[in-house]
């Protein structure tokens, strides 16, 4: 029957993303689900995590008794360092971001367009006092942007669009989208479905997507 499928949980989604990150990549993980990805990379796979406040080589959350109050990530969560980690100042850290040195940045999103445009910082064209943070720098700087978000809003509004309606974070930056329903590449020909949750019919996915989808 048509309803016999389940969306991925946040944890399953994070694990799905982590599965695609090979050893040796330098990766920045944005706020929200992306942060969970770090916990899903097997410890023996050396993936080097960058945090834009000035850390290369971030480790997982500390045991409570080993918490270092001076060591947080860009989401202000207490973290640890891996052996081999280092600190840098904020300008050098964003120089690293903008300079194209990250293999991957995983960002949360509000909307992604079929041309790769990303909107993830403001839901209003007229809100003049939002939070920009570092997302714009990451979106223009990393070699690959993967966006992780729910496929639609809670009220069912579509998020994979022909064109974004929210203010852009960057143009044409998104290479891949991981939603709770599917993994979708952004290509020259638009959205291409790479994977879906088991049992989800293509037309049901398309019904939840504004822009046309192609099958891989």
């Amino acid at each position: 029957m048509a309803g016999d499928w389940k969306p991925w949980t946040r944890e399953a989604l994070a694990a799905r993303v982590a599965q695609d990150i090979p050893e040796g990549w330098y990766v920045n993980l944005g706020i929200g689900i992306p942060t969970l990805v770090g916990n899903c990379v097997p410890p023996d796979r050396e993936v080097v995590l960058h945090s834009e406040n000035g850390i290369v080589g971030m480790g997982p959350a500390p045991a409570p008794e080993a918490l270092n109050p001076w060591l947080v990530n860009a989401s202000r969560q207490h973290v640890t360092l891996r052996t081999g980690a280092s600190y840098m100042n904020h300008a050098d850290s964003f120089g690293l971001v903008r300079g194209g040195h990250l293999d991957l940045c995983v960002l949360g999103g509000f909307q992604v367009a079929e041309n790769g445009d990303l909107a993830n910082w403001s839901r209003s064209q007229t809100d003049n006092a939002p939070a920009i943070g570092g997302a714009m720098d990451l979106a223009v700087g990393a070699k690959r942007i993967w966006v992780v978000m729910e496929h639609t809003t809670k009220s069912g509004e579509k998020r994979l669009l022909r064109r974004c309606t929210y203010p852009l974070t960057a143009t044409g930056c998104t290479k891949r989208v991981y939603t709770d329903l599917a993994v979708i590449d952004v290509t020259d020909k638009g959205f291409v479905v790479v994977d879906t949750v088991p049992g989800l019919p293509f037309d049901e996915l398309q019904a939840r997507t504004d822009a046309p989808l192609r099958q891989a």
Partner: protein
Amino acid sequence: MIDKFVRSVAEAMAGIKDGATVLVAGFAQIGEPRALVDGLIEQGAKDLTVVHNTAGRGREGVARLIGEGRVRKIICSFARSRGSVLFEEVYARGAIELEMVPQGTLAERIRAGGAGIPAFFTPTGGGTLVARGKETRIIDGRECVLEQAIRGDVALVEAWRADRWGNLVYRDAGRNFNPIVAAAGTLTIVQAQNVAELGELTPEMIVTPGIYVDRVVHVPSGDPPVVIS
């Protein structure tokens, strides 16, 4: 003998004028020169332009400075955020000017200020609202935005150790904006958790050389607050 230590926060803050541009380092309460911000509130200068990563959170520090109506303009990358209550109040009644800047552009503008680069092009913000009203140019196929350097009349810094020349090292993620803020201030004031003898900080260790520092006050304020989210 060069000795940049002063005896009190009040002495450290002496001479800051109304209308000054004040750079405040720190990220997420780590490496934030809270004692100096409190000293600035005490000192009384007003009509300030404050440059800081956020518009403050809660009711202390930069938030309190804004809440007391002392800030004419804030330049930051996070305005509205969890806990930006005082900013919201003041902004809602039109009593503060806001300049929103992507975080990396904010860092680079401050770095440029210290390094004598008056302006630079960056791809960050190209094709977005951030580019609106700014000069843009297509470089290597990407829209880049011309951004201006930021310098401070005053720079407020928190360091882990300082010596009498004003050489500084930072602790862990407390480094963040501090080195670039230190370099971009005409009057750079440092609160240091620990005092080092000259020479204890080795040539390889020193992150901020004393040439960037004007005054140092010893403030052993201890660890930043632990936040469990």
